[in-house]
């Protein structure tokens, strides 16, 4: 008996249905139900009227933006150095930068918290940002490094040939051409930082609550419907930012990026 080639995809379809589509549908259903299972907008409305929820959400966005900015400022130069044939001749350095990703993020976060503890650093926003930048930096470096690495060297040579100093080459050619990697990196860092809760829990001792934290708290205390509504709101917001990324991808073109 021969199996049609198109039927090879069936296991993956089943997987997607069970682990991606179904949970999303469930979240959507729960978000629009009250405790008794009646349809309601109450949960969504509650978020937009609750000052606490809104301020947590604002703080989450603020922390995510700050973390993304820190990662970008640290990550771009690192990626540039890694991709430059003159400054870095070894593939090992690239792996060293990516290596932390091989260790579970939770373990790294716990270890970081322990280090702060040992050195007597007060946990707070500073330690939170430090931990986030530490966790997410590779996600910024890698897509940018990838784009820079694949960039045709003749572009920078053409710019030099036309009279651009090294600084001008970077500003007018390298930077604009690496934008797909930058947007990709921003998404890779921004999206998970909005929703994270573990890092804020360990590195601020729950002093700072992020959006992810309140979702987790609601779910943990069996407030499924409100938790689902919050999750849905976050999903929509992340979805919107992804759309911006797509637009940039078209404007910038050139291959690269991680997603």
């Amino acid at each position, binding site marked *: 008996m021969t199996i049609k080639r198109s039927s090879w995809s069936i296991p993956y379809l089943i997987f997607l249905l069970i682990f991606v589509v179904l949970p999303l549908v469930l979240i959507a259903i729960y978000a629009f139900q009250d405790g008794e299972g009646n349809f309601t907008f109450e949960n969504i409305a509650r978020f937009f009227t609750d000052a606490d929820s809104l301020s947590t959400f604002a703080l989450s966005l603020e922390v995510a933006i700050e973390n993304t900015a820190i990662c970008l400022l640290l990550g771009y130069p690192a990626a540039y150095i890694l991709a430059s044939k003159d400054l870095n001749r070894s593939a090992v350095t690239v792996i060293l930068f990516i290596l932390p990703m091989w260790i579970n993020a939770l373990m790294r976060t716990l270890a970081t918290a322990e280090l702060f503890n040992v050195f007597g650093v007060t946990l707070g926003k500073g330690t939170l940002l430090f931990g986030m930048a530490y966790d997410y930096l590779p996600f910024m470096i890698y897509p940018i490094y990838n784009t820079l690495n694949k960039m*045709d060297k*003749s*572009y920078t*040579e*053409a*710019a*030099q*040939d*036309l*009279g*651009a*100093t090294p600084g*001008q080459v970077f500003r*007018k*050619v390298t930077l*604009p*051409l690496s934008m797909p990697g930058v947007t990709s990196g921003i998404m890779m860092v921004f999206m998970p930082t909005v929703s994270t809760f573990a890092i804020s829990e360990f590195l601020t001792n729950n002093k700072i609550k992020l959006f992810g934290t309140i979702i987790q708290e609601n779910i943990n205390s069996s407030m499924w419907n409100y938790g689902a509504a919050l999750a849905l709101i976050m999903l929509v917001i992340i979805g919107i930012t992804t759309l911006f990324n797509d637009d940039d991808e078209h404007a*910038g*073109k*050139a291959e690269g990026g991680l997603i």
Partner: protein
Amino acid sequence: MTDKDVIIRLENVSKSFGGKKVLDNISLDIKKGEFLTLLGPSGCGKTTTLRLISGFTTPDSGTVYMDGKDISGMPPYKRTLNTVFQRYALFPHLDVYDNIAFGLKLAKVPEKEIEQRVRKVLKMVSMTDYEDRDVESLSGGQQQRVAIARALVNQPKVLLLDEPLSALDHKMRQDMQIELKEMHQKLGITFIYVTHDQEEALTLSDTIVVMNEGKIQQIGTPADIYNEPVNSFVADFIGESNILNGTMIEDRKVNFIGHDFECVDEGFGTNNPVDVVIRPEDIYIMSHTEGAQFSGTVKSCTFKGVHYEMFVDSDSGYELMIQDYNAFEPGSKVGMLIKPSDIQVMRKERVCNTLEGVMTDENHVDLLGGEFECMPLAGAEAGDEVVAKVDFQDIELLDHQEEGTLAGEVYVILYKGDHYHLTVLTENGDHLYVDTQDIWDKGDLVGISIKPSAIKLSKRNDN
């Protein structure tokens, strides 16, 4: 130090990459306003030479001068020359106008003037009305024009072109050749052009520099290079040719394919081995043998559009390529004539392989990294440095690399009328020259073996 006419001068320039010598002591003068082509097979050093001039590479030794000033270490952005890159390298994030205006904006040229100059140069490359187009939406030929416009708008003294037409199809390439030639005449600036296409070089250039293996083989006008190649490499690389072994009997008399011919060359000594080049269109072919210098039988005849290309076996056993407007039936008996002035005699670069080696014991010698059995050399002991001479025909090539004392790769094939003259690249990058009747292809991997009696040793200190 400079003549007024010379705009770029390379003086004893050498360059190595990773231990491999890419340019070997090159000297070259490029005159103001000329169309100079660097021609050679891939890896001959022509692109490196261009990059030395544009400033993307610096010489290991030697000097690059422009207008009499040493510019060897000057970064590219300070040099008043512009390059058209092989794959154009148009900035994908800028439109046609901004690509062309790139250099002018950097030079802080007023906006008004930029606009005028961009329009003017677009008109010159027949790309008016394309200002706002996305460069990636353009065809290869259009991108090419934009790349040329982007370089020319800066009014460089020298325009460098790195195989600019290699990505275009045949028809497009011919059109662009004519346009480039016209542009050169109109602008009056120096063009330095890199190509591996000999036809392109002959069509475009005022001066051709033929390069091979990091060395300049010949510099001359297209006619010089075609009619009077200085060695068999140039003769083989430029156009079709019959390259034959000959003997210079005396001045104005050379023997090849078993016959004596009158020629116009002098000063090669007497009874010296030489290479003889005859272009296929320079052999007169006729259906009768009386009055002919030699005779033969037509082996094949192919129509080539304007002329017929025939392979003729001479009665003395050599195969010759002949081009003629008349066709001769395969199998027919023909007579042939060659005018003295059409016989090009060239000194042989070498008459045998000369290798440096070390004796490993009494009857073994280490040559090119392989240990060969040899006849004992009187007074030579293990460790002595020796020179080995091996005739071309004494090197045996084997089908499998492991069967030979050395492994190699067939690198260049030259047909010499009755045998092939091969250049074999050994594993260490050395060259061995081999005469053989067998047919090999370029890139074939071969084993190399030499009979002990064929290795003629002498002590290194002797000479």
